[in-house]
C-alpha cells in the first residue's frame, strides 16, 4: 500500500478552507444512524466525542480511568499556544507555523502544521466560552506568556494547571452530551483489539476492568485519542496507566506506525532519587520564563547552591545559546543538561540534576509575582522534595515525556486502516522530530474539536445506508477469542519476576540507548536485550490473581507485553535513520559544536512502519515536501 497523505490542493494558507469547502458532509437526519466509537477521554478523544455527539452522531467513549476528567491531559501545566497576536509582538499564523516547523527540525508535514496554527485561534475562543479561567491582565483581557523555541508570547495559561482546565472544559462538554443521551461513556474499560470487517474498522474488543468481562462494541468508525507511550521508559512524566496498547494492537492489524523512536525527553522534571521510584514529576517549561538553569563551574563544588557566587556558576544555556537562552526548545535543553551531567557537573546526591534558579526573578519581580505565576508548581515541588524553591534552586533533570511518533495518519487524520482515525498524541504528523512547548494541548484539542469532526464525515458519508453494525460476526468472534487467549496465557505464566521489575529493566535499556543520544552499537545491543527481556517476561512474569474482577498486575502485564514489542520497533526506527534531527540525536551525525546534523538529501521523510510478522517490519517513506519554507540548519544561538 502506498502512502497518500491526501493534502488538499492550493496555497498552504488556503488548503484547510479548500478542504472544508469541498469535503462531503452528512445530513443531520442521517447522523443519528451512524455510530462512532472513541477510545480515550482526554483532550483529543474527549473533544472528538463531545463534538461528534453535538453534531448528532451516536458516540461511545471508552477510557481506563474511573472518570474522563482524570485523563492524562490533566497533567499538562504551562499552557496552550495560539496565534492571536494579542501582544502586538508580530505574531501571526505563518510565524506560528514556521516556529513549529523549525522546532520540529523540518520533519513534520507542512500542511498539517499550518492547519494547526490556523485553527489555534478558534480554540481559544472555544475554551473561553466553555468557562476555562485563563489568566487575565488587569484590564480583563487574556494574558500570555512565552515558551521555548519562540520569540513571541503566544501561550495562554491557567496558572500551572492549563491542561487540567482545558480537560475539565472538555469533560463538562462530554457530560452535557451524556445527559442528553448522545454520548455513552464506558469508564474503567481497556481496549484490547480492534475489529476489522471487509477491510474496515468496525468495532473494538474491550475489557471491563471492574468485572474482567470481555465486551464487543461495534460502530461505523473508530477514533483513537489514546495518547503517547512514553511510559515505555518506566520512569517518565506520564501517568502510571498511560500505555501504547491500543495503538500497538491496531498496528498489528494494519495501521502503520510513524516515527516511533521520536520521544521528547523533557528537560525539567524531578530527578530520580532511588530504585523505588515510579514517576518523574514534570516541572512546567513555563518556569524557564523566569528561572535560570546552571551548574557549578567546579566539578567538586561542595557549597550549598545559595552560597555559590555568580562567577562560579555556569549558566550553560545562556552561554551556548545567547539568542534563546533558557528558552531553547526541549530537545536542545535536555541534551545540554546531559552534556553537563555526563561531564561530571551534575548536582544532587546522585549527580543527576541541574539547578533551576529563581533568585534573579524573585529579586526583580518579588516573591508574590512568582507565586502568582507558578505557585502551584512550587507547592508541588515542595510536597515531593520537602524543599522550598523560593529559598533555594530546584533540582531538575531530563525525563521521557511525549511521543512525537504515533499512528500514521493522512491529512484527514485517517490511519492506514479505513475507518480508524487517530487524534492528538496518538498520531504523528504535527510535531516533527521535536514538539514545542504548549503545542500538545493545542494539537490534542484542535484535532478533537475542530479537525476530526470535519474530516470523519467524508468517510461516514458512505455509510448512511449501511445500517447498524452487528457484533455477532465471525470477525468479532475471532478477535474476542484472541483477546481471551492472551489473558489466559498471561495468567498461566505464574513466574517469580514482578511485572514492574521487568518494566524497569526495559526502561533502563531504552533510556540508555534509545533516548537523548543514540548510536548504532548501543542500539544493536538494545535490540538483543529487549528480545531477551521479552523471552524472560513470557517465561517468568509473576502475575497473580485471576481474570475475574479488578487485577492491576494483569493490566500492567498486558501493557508491558506490548511495550516489549514497541521497544524493538522504536530501536529499529532509530537505527534506520542515519542522521540527527530534533530529539533523534545520533552520535555519529553531529556538528563540531555537538549540534544535530540533518541529512535532508537522504532522510527528508517520515518513516511509516508496516507490521509484517513477529520478526519484521516493512518501511514506507512519506516524502516531506516544503513549499513555503526552506529547511535550514536549526539554530538557537
Amino acid at each position, binding site marked *: 500500500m502506498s502512502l497518500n497523505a491526501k493534502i488538499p490542493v492550493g496555497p498552504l494558507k488556503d488548503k484547510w478552507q479548500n478542504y472544508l469547502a469541498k469535503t462531503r458532509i452528512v445530513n443531520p437526519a442521517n447522523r443519528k444512524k451512524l455510530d462512532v466509537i472513541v477510545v480515550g477521554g482526554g483532550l483529543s478523544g474527549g473533544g472528538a466525542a463531545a*463534538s461528534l455527539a453535538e453534531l448528532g452522531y451516536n458516540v461511545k467513549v471508552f477510557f481506563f480511568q474511573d472518570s474522563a476528567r482524570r485523563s492524562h491531559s490533566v497533567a499538562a501545566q504551562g499552557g496552550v499556544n495560539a496565534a492571536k497576536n494579542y501582544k502586538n509582538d508580530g505574531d501571526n499564523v505563518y510565524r506560528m507555523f514556521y516556529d513549529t516547523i523549525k522546532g520540529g527540525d523540518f520533519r513534520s508535514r507542512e500542511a498539517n502544521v499550518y492547519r494547526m496554527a490556523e485553527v489555534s485561534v*478558534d480554540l481559544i475562543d472555544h475554551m473561553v*466560552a466553555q*468557562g476555562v479561567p485563563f489568566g487575565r491582565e488587569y484590564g480583563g483581557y487574556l494574558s500570555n506568556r512565552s515558551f521555548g523555541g519562540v520569540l513571541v508570547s503566544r501561550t495562554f495559561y491557567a496558572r500551572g494547571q492549563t491542561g487540567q482546565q482545558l480537560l475539565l472544559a472538555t469533560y463538562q462538554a462530554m457530560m452535557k452530551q451524556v445527559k442528553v443521551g448522545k454520548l455513552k461513556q464506558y469508564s474503567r474499560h481497556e481496549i484490547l483489539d480492534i475489529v476489522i470487517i471487509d477491510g474496515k474498522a468496525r468495532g473494538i474488543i474491550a475489557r471491563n476492568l*471492574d468485572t474482567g468481562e470481555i465486551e464487543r462494541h461495534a460502530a461505523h468508525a473508530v477514533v483513537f485519542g489514546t495518547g503517547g507511550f512514553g511510559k515505555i521508559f518506566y520512569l517518565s512524566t506520564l*501517568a502510571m496507566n498511560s500505555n501504547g496498547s491500543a495503538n500497538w494492537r491496531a498496528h498489528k492489524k494494519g495501521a502503520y506506525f510513524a516515527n516511533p523512536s521520536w520521544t521528547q525527553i523533557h528537560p525539567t522534571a524531578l530527578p530520580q532519587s532511588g530504585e523505588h521510584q515510579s514517576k518523574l514529576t514534570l516541572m512546567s517549561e513555563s518556569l524557564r520564563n523566569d528561572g535560570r538553569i546552571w551548574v557549578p563551574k567546579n566539578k567538586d563544588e561542595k557549597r550549598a547552591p545559595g552560597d555559590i557566587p555568580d562567577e562560579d556558576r555556569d549558566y550553560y544555556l545562556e552561554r551556548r545559546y545567547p539568542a534563546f537562552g533558557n528558552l531553547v526548545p526541549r530537545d536542545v535543553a535536555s541534551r545540554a543538561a546531559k552534556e553537563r551531567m555526563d561531564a561530571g557537573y551534575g548536582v544532587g546526591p546522585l549527580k543527576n540534576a541541574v539547578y533551576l534558579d529563581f533568585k534573579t526573578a524573585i529579586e526583580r519581580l518579588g516573591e508574590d509575582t512568582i507565586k502568582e505565576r507558578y505557585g502551584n508548581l512550587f507547592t508541588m515541588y515542595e510536597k515531593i522534595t520537602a524543599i522550598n524553591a523560593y529559598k533555594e534552586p530546584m533540582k531538575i533533570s531530563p525525563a521521557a515525556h511525549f511521543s512525537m511518533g504515533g499512528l500514521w495518519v493522512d491529512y484527514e487524520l485517517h490511519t492506514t486502516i479505513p475507518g480508524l482515525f487517530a487524534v492528538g498524541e496518538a498520531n504523528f504528523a504535527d510535531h516533527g522530530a521535536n514538539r514545542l512547548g504548549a503545542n500538545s494541548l493545542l494539537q490534542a484539542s484542535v484535532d478533537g474539536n475542530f479537525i476530526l469532526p470535519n474530516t470523519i464525515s467524508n468517510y461516514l458519508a458512505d455509510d448512511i445506508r449501511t445500517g447498524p453494525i452487528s457484533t455477532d460476526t465471525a470477525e468479532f468472534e475471532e478477535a474476542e477469542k484472541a483477546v481471551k487467549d492472551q489473558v489466559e496465557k498471561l495468567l498461566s505464566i505464574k513466574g517469580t519476576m514482578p511485572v*514492574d521489575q521487568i518494566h524497569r529493566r526495559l526502561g533502563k535499556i531504552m533510556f540508555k540507548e534509545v533516548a537523548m543520544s543514540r548510536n548504532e552499537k548501543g542500539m544493536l545491543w538494545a535490540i538483543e536485550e529487549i528480545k531477551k527481556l521479552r523471552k524472560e517476561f513470557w517465561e517468568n512474569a509473576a502475575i497473580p490473581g485471576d481474570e475475574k474482577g479488578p487485577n492491576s498486575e494483569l493490566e500492567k502485564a498486558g501493557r508491558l507485553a506490548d511495550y516489549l514489542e514497541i521497544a524493538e520497533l522504536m530501536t529499529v526506527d532509530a537505527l534506520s535513520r542515519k542522521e540527527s534531527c530534533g530529539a533523534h540525536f545520533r552520535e555519529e551525525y553531529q556538528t563540531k559544536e555537538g549540534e544535530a546534523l540533518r541529512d535532508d538529501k537522504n532522510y527528508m521523510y517520515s518513516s511509516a512502519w508496516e507490521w509484517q510478522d513477529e520478526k519484521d517490519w516493512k518501511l514506507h517513506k512519506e516524502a516531506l515536501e516544503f513549499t513555503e519554507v526552506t529547511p535550514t540548519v536549526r539554530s538557537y544561538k
Partner: protein
Amino acid sequence: MKLTLKIWRQENAKTKGKLVNYELSNLSLDMSFLEMLDTLNEQLAVKGERGVEFDHDCREGICGQCSLVINGQAHGPEGHYTTCQTHLRSFKDGDTLAIEPFRANSFPVIRDLKVDRSSMDRIIQAGGYISSFTGMAPEANSIPIHHEIAESAFDSAACIGCGACVATCKNSSAALFLSAKVGHLAKLPQGKVERMERVVWMVNAHDEEGFGSCTHTGACAMVCPQEVQLLDIARMNYEYNRATCLVKE
C-alpha cells in the same frame, strides 16, 4: 524504615471486608506512599498472592484518581496533599498505619481500596457545564473578565474531584465538590446564563445520589488537596436560594 500496615481487603461490594496485616522493612524515607504499596504488591506477586487493588494514575496530585484514608485521614496526615504526594518522611520508623478506602454510601467499594466515584460524574452531568457547542464561541477577548474574578473562578475550578471531602465529612456530603463547580461557573460571565438551572439541578442530583447534607463542620476544607474554600459552599447556598426563592418573587 519499617512499617506495619493494616490494609482493608474486600473482594467486592457484596462481600464483607477486613483489615489484614502486612509488615514492610527496608523502606526509604524518600519513597512515596504509593511506591510503598507498589513494593508490597511486588512482594505479594512473587508469592503468587493477589495484590492490593488501589486507585492511582498521574502520581503528581492533579488527576484525582488516588484516594485512601490513612490512619483515619483522607489522603494521609499532611492535609492538602493527595495520597500520591504523601511520602514516607511523614511517618516514623516502626509506625502502624491503617489504610482504608474512601468510605461513603455513594462510593461503593469495587475491590480492596478501589471505590466507584461515578456518582460525582452524575452531579456534573446534571448541570456542571456551559452549553456552548464547538463552533459557537465568540472572539475570546470580547468578554473581558476582571483579573480577580478570573483568579477566584480558577480557585474553585482547581478542584480535582478526588472525593476526599466526601470521605472526610461525617455526613458524606459532597458539598465542597459540588460548590466548587457551581462557584467556578457562576463567577464567570460565560456561566451566568445558566446559573439558576445549574445550581438547582446539581444540588438535586447530589441529594439523589445519596450524599448527605452539609452541616458546616469545615472538615472537608481541611483535607482538600486544592484548598477549595468553604466560602464556595456559602456561595452555592446563595446561588440556590437566589434561584429558588429570590428570582421567583
